[in-house]
């Protein structure tokens, strides 16, 4: 499904060029959950951003190829890349609250994905059920702007009225009349195909009361719900591949268990490929089939979950496993200070 060959990415920083990725090779097969583990700065997130060219301005892919279903997407056009993002590959991020736009409703945010990648289905649905595709745009501004205009007009009218000059307030009065007239002329509009499809996608990630959630803002939802919305958004474009970048790090353990279960369920239902990026070996062990371990911009070991935990080959993997407390009280085997050095 996704194949990354010899990927190298550099970051240009104040102190010079930093090699974030130094020849990464990995392949995610059809319909499997693939784990990518590593510590901070090992380059696991950079791998996924490089693959979809989502790097910040300072980063740059210098070498390597990325194949998606056999298609080389390293140097495809911006247009094709946009089709892939959200349409063929969905991504979810670590902190759902900051990854969702705080001033847009869930409906608008998921709706964007649908309009971009599911346009045909939307129109099909609309013509089948004889409903509008999108809600026809009302001639109105955001409530904030409407309010300001109203407030300014009223305050000026009253100001001039207080000063005894009613006629000076006439222009402002005129604006208010216009606004009221406009509201009167505009009627309520039924659910559009877009609204219905947004609610369907929310339903898929086991969110209760989709209508209410669709009309709410991200901060009004709990952390678990936000991450479910992120998943719904990543899947809305009927993606065949899901990249999950530390999807549960910001969540409590009990919520983490729910979200991981949800990802597993959806993966099975849709027979998707999932690339799960995490620093938590436990999460990998419970969720994935195959794992790659990253260290300093390189994949040091790749194997099935069972093999890697029972029989680690690379010294770094061994060191990493040793550093985790496992029930007993014996001293953890790590150097007292400093890094691992030249493993």
């Amino acid at each position, binding site marked *: 499904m996704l194949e990354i060959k010899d990927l190298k990415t550099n970051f240009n920083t104040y102190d010079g060029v930093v090699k974030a990725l130094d020849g990464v090779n990995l392949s995610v097969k059809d319909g499997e959950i693939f784990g990518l583990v590593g*510590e*901070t700065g090992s380059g696991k997130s950079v791998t996924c951003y490089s693959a979809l060219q989502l790097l910040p301005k300072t980063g740059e892919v210098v070498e390597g190829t990325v194949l998606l279903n056999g298609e080389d997407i390293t140097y495809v056009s911006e247009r094709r890349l946009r089709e892939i993002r959200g349409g063929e590959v969905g991504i979810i991020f670590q902190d759902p609250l900051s990854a969702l736009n705080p001033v847009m409703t869930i409906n608008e945010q998921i709706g964007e994905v649908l309009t971009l990648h599911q346009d045909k289905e939307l129109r099909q649905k609309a013509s089948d059920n004889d409903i509008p595709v999108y809600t026809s745009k009302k001639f109105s501004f955001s409530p904030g702007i409407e309010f300001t205009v109203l407030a300014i007009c009223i305050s000026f009218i009253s100001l001039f009225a207080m000063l005894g000059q009613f006629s000076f307030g006439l222009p402002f009065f005129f604006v208010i009349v216009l606004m009221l007239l406009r509201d009167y002329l505009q009627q309520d509009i039924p659910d559009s195909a877009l609204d219905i499809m947004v609610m369907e996608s929310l339903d898929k990630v*086991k*969110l*209760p*009361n989709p209508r209410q959630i669709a009309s709410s803002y991200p901060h009004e939802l*709990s*952390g*678990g*719900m936000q991450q479910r919305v992120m998943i719904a958004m990543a899947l809305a474009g009927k993606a065949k591949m899901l990249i999950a970048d530390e999807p549960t790090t910001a969540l*409590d*353990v*009990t*919520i*983490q*268990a*729910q979200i*991981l*279960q*949800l990802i597993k*369920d959806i993966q099975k239902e849709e027979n998707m490929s999932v690339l799960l990026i995490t*620093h*938590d*070996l*436990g*999460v*990998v*062990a*419970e969720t994935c089939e195959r794992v790659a371990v990253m260290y300093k911009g390189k994949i040091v070991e790749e194997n099935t*979950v069972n093999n890697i*935990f029972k029989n680690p080959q690379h010294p770094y993997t061994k*060191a*990493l496993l*040793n*550093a*985790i*407390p*496992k*029930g*007993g*009280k014996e*001293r*953890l*085997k*790590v*150097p*007292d*200070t400093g*890094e*691992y050095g030249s493993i």
Partner: protein
Amino acid sequence: MMREYIIQIKDLRKHFPVKNVWGTDIALVKALDGVDLNIEEGKTFGIVGESGCGKTTLMRTLLRLVEPTSGSVLLSDQFLGLKGRNLENLTNEELRLFRRQIGVVFQDPMGALNPRMLIKDIVGEPLVIHGKTENFRSKVIELLNNVGLGEEHLYRYPHEFSGGQRQRIVIARALALDPKVLVLDEPTSALDVSVQAQILNLLNDLQVKFNLTYVFISHDLSVIEYMCDRLAVMYLGKVVEEADTEELFFNPQHPYTKALLSATPQFFAPDKKRIMILGDVPSPITYLDESKAKLATEITVQERLEIKALEGKEIDYIVRSSLNEVFPLKKVSNEHYARVK
């Protein structure tokens, strides 16, 4: 055998009022709701729980950074000059004495260090505050040596250090006045596993060397299991289970503890039968107006959806009570749920 308790917490409560526009209280956030704990001398006492369960409030009350609503924290004779005193009734002079004998390590090591101070001044600050400035330099160097840093780090700023080193500096500062008790608030949750292992080893060494008592707060069960001798599980401001670590891990009694243990991913035993807690962490807000409180047997739509999804999946599940009760609900039949004690 009688255990030597250095701190005894009795029925500690901290309620934050929730006000409406007119400033009248309509609800209480019960951050701590009747906590009883006995902290043994020279051992590590662990407190574990999810976000919002009151662990951090407990820490802040222990340090007297917030005043509790009611309850007491009794100090033993291990605290010089404070024997049998209640922490909440200390005079200003006694409070200074207390602060000399308790140290604290915070979760975020960068935030806990003043970016505009040199390491020398940061580590030596408690010494200055309590007027112990003779041999200042050699004392600070000794403190740094204790945590694996050295003289060459004296004149540096915090931003020049890595995360693990910063946490070492925080620990060095906490040890400056030879405290009896060290309160550790998620000391490793911002660190990578390898660095976490280093810090945990260091903490164990220091405990032996200085005969310290640790109060170790964390949400990470594997770390808690490794570090602690005794353990309390908190849920919505209450302690639901308190036991010696091994006992608690091998034979958990409370359904919440069971579910929490099961939810923690463990890579060495992935085949165990799972218990999952459904729904969100309930809010610790208690409305004073009874009519606003939900029924104990009521479950949310979210939970109902999750139950459906789990059917036939070989996973046991527990439904969290929507009321602020510690006892979760267990499904009895399709429509009925019972409180589990």
